[in-house]
């Protein structure tokens, strides 16, 4: 499936906060980004290159997120797994 992608001008403008984009450009881009991984990747690159505040936010949120991952969803799974493991491999 061939898709029309957003222009670099619009991607860059959005990464910088979108204030210099027209309302319909913004709308079209946001609708497009929901469906297009290629343009999301291009947007990520634009954020890295020209939106340090956003990149920092993404990093900060990940730092807060990471320690919680082990505690939350994985836990029951791991408990079951390690119980199974210790039954079969008592030395582990």
């Amino acid at each position, binding site marked *: 499936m061939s898709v029309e992608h957003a222009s670099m001008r619009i991607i860059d403008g*959005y*990464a910088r*906060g*979108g204030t210099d984009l*027209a*309302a*319909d*450009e*913004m*709308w*079209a881009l*946001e*609708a*497009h*980004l*929901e*469906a297009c*991984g290629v343009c*999301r*990747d291009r*947007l*990520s690159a634009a*954020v*890295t290159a020209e*939106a340090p505040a*956003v*990149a920092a*936010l*993404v990093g*900060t*949120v*990940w730092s*807060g*997120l990471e320690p*919680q*991952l082990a505690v*939350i*969803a*994985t836990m029951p*799974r791991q408990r079951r797994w390690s119980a199974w493991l210790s039954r079969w491999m008592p030395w582990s």
Partner: protein
Amino acid sequence: VRSVRKAPRALDEERLVRLVARGDRAAFEELYRRTAPWMALRLRRRCADEQIVAEVMQETYLAVWRAAGAFAGSSTGGTAAGWLWTIAARRLVDAFRRRAHHAEPPAAAALPDAAPAAEEEALATTVGGDVGDALRRLSPELRQVLQAMVLDGLSVRETAVLLGLPEGTVKTRARRARIAMREALA
């Protein structure tokens, strides 16, 4: 950290979410890496408070980690990013609601939309030509309501919370926005 079995780049986000549903940490990390900058920008467009944006992102991705199976199990053909945004938009509304209980309501930037009519469904996917012109001519307060309801898929009540408006005002503006769009496209 073990690596995703197949080269992560070769996997689309839908596949990543399915791996996350099985507790795959590396897939989750990859999903975050690919979608978080987009998510951050889209939330910042709708909420001027950086603290709330960070909080909403954290809650959203924790929900994804916890409940990826809910998406993985659905075969309705939506994109993983669309699913992520649905979660984020609701968490944002919840955050606004919580703040409203405490003190000053947070500064909304611009919010999305509500009930899809035919012309709105077109809006949610592509915007160009006449539709673009019509959108551009719409007054900001009508466009804001339309955006919250159509693009972000929020209800009247959620839109009211997000924009800090009475529900009646949201309804009136949504109606006026629809009429304006219909006339512009006639």
